[in-house]
């Protein structure tokens, strides 16, 4: 089936006081309808920046794009025309920090209905008038969706202020809000990072169930490999703004080919094994290493890794960008 989202060879960055931050450097990623794709990578690798590029929300005055394309539901998200109508309708966003995205001064219900006024699937493009009939239908849809994300007593919840909700409840409201416009793609940026494991399990369960039932595609960014295992069908690993590897979930965890993916998986704490981590630090986007950005930390690096950028290749759905890919299963 055709992709709902396709990011191809995207390279972009920011003008900063200290120079050019070359944040994304050749990112490739696709999401098909109904699929949950995990975008994993360590802090600072560019996950939120990529989400911003897809949504078209990066600060225009300081952002430059030097290469590549982002196409979402057929619209070119970098061009600007058509992007506005797609954003908030065909694609919605679940942010990392749900508290910051509510206005503390207004009741939840007021904020939800305000959103529905503009983003409801029942709104005809261009119409400003919010009819009573549509308002009623929207309100029913809101209540039904709050129930679907397992929030008890949704009508009472709409009367509350943001600070009266727990972190898990706020995140559920955000999921409900993201699904209400009946989007084709939801981008969830680390949606459970701040939550406890039991609440995380509840939230991931809700997100996965709704995505599967409604055929919504999800791009799920995280640095938590356990959460990626839980919810994803396919996983994309990014290192310092470069796509390192793309693989179906099982294969990703059992037989990764990229050295960085292997080192990341071997860093996970496990009984009877004392992982050492990855020596060295993530490079600054102000002065990234040339060619393969992982070469200063890679045990397999040779001359070619420093001079020539490895292209993303491989077979049938398992792709990796590496001159010297690893073979065989990841040892347990």
């Amino acid at each position, binding site marked *: 089936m055709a992709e709902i989202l396709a990011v191809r060879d995207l390279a972009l960055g920011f003008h900063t006081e200290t120079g050019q931050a070359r944040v994304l450097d050749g990112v490739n990623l696709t999401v098909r309808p109904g699929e949950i794709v995990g975008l994993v990578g*360590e*802090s600072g690798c560019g996950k939120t920046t990529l989400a911003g590029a897809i949504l078209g929300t990066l600060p225009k005055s300081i952002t430059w794009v030097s290469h590549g394309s982002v196409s979402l539901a057929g619209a070119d998200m970098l061009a600007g025309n058509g992007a506005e109508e797609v954003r908030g309708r065909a694609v919605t966003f679940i942010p990392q920090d749900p508290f910051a995205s509510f206005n503390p001064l207004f009741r939840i219900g007021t904020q939800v209905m305000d959103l529905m006024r503009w983003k409801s699937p029942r709104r005809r493009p261009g119409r400003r008038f919010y009819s009573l009939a549509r308002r009623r239908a929207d309100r029913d849809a809101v209540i039904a969706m709050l129930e679907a994300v*397992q929030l008890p007593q949704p009508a009472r919840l709409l009367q509350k202020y943001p600070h009266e909700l*727990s*972190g*898990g*409840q706020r995140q559920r409201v955000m999921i409900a809000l993201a699904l209400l416009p009946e989007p084709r793609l939801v981008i969830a940026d680390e949606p459970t990072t701040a939550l*406890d*494991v*039991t*609440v*995380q*399990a*509840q939230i*991931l*369960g809700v997100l*996965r169930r709704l995505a599967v039932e409604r055929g919504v595609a999800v791009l799920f960014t995280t*640095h938590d*490999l*356990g*959460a990626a*295992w*839980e*919810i994803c069908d396919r996983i994309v690993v990014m290192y310092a703004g470069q796509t390192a590897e793309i693989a179906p979930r099982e294969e990703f*965890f*059992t037989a990764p080919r990229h050295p960085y993916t292997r*080192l*990341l998986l071997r*860093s*996970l*704490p*496990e*009984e009877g*094994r*004392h*992982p*050492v*981590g*990855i020596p060295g*630090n993530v490079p600054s986007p102000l002065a990234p290493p040339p060619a393969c950005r992982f070469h200063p930390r890679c045990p397999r690096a040779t001359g070619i890794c420093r001079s020539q950028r490895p292209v993303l290749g491989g077979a049938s759905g398992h792709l990796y960008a590496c001159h010297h890919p690893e073979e065989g299963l990841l040892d347990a």
Partner: protein
Amino acid sequence: MPDAALLETRGLKRHFAVRGLLNRRIGTLRALDGVDLAVEAGEVLGIVGESGCGKSTLGKTIMGIHQPTEGEVRFAGVRVAAPGHPRPKSLRARLQYVYQDPGASLDPSWTLRRSMHEPLVIHTDLSRGQREERIREIIAAVGLPVTHLDLYPHEISGGQQRRIGLARILCLGPRLVILDEPTSGLDVSVQAAVLALFRELRERFGLTYLFISHDLAVVRSMCDRVAVMYLGRVVEIAPAAELFAAPRHPYTRALLAAAPRIGGPRVTENFTLQGEPPDPSEIPAGCRFRGRCPLAAPVCAEEPALDFTGPHGAACWRWREAARLPSAASSS
């Protein structure tokens, strides 16, 4: 209780007043509500539980940052904290509390050398030369070059700041270190390095750790014994391997079942625990877990105490039945 215990708490409670309008006391928040623990010299005792269950309050009450409301803390056989009991001054250096991010407490306008000297100036009467000698030894032990002492905090990475923060605490020569969420917010590759550092420092300086974390995988790999807290109480305590292999308390079982296990079945598909921990200012009567417990029965109207077989204790009337149920977190 073995008399080798380095640290002991007996019936330790810490309550906070809940204040309403005009600062009138309208209730009591029982953050810590009767904890008996014994930590042996050289041991790593893990404290796990969800946000708000009282982990940090336990650490801070032991440390003397909070006065106990009831009960006492004994260190090396001597009472060091009880209601109205003055804290022995000599204790300060021997018992140390490490906040989540020890690097955050560095003064940005001081060189790292000055930040390192300061605690020694306050707590010891070493000469300048003796202080410098000790600092150089510890800096090497945490894996930083001595030349870093001339730098300012913003000139080193976040991970290195954490190392400096730890070094400041270690140079006082503590015996017991309370580590409060020491790896939260770290990427796995950095986390692995930090955990390796904790292990190495423990060997080298003969430290005892109270290791507070909500990351079960980290606790499992790091701790000798683990105590599970729920609403201000320890509900289960056991040697780590045993707790993870054969949990007894229904809450512990839910907690373990919620944690994703890479390679195992998706827990989100059969995770059943509903709701979130109740508010510690309105703790239910009887067993605290009663409202969410799938095994709750009339007997649970009375609060259960820890029931031990050997070193493994669970505070549940029905733990024998609970332990027989199949578990979603069957070890892979």
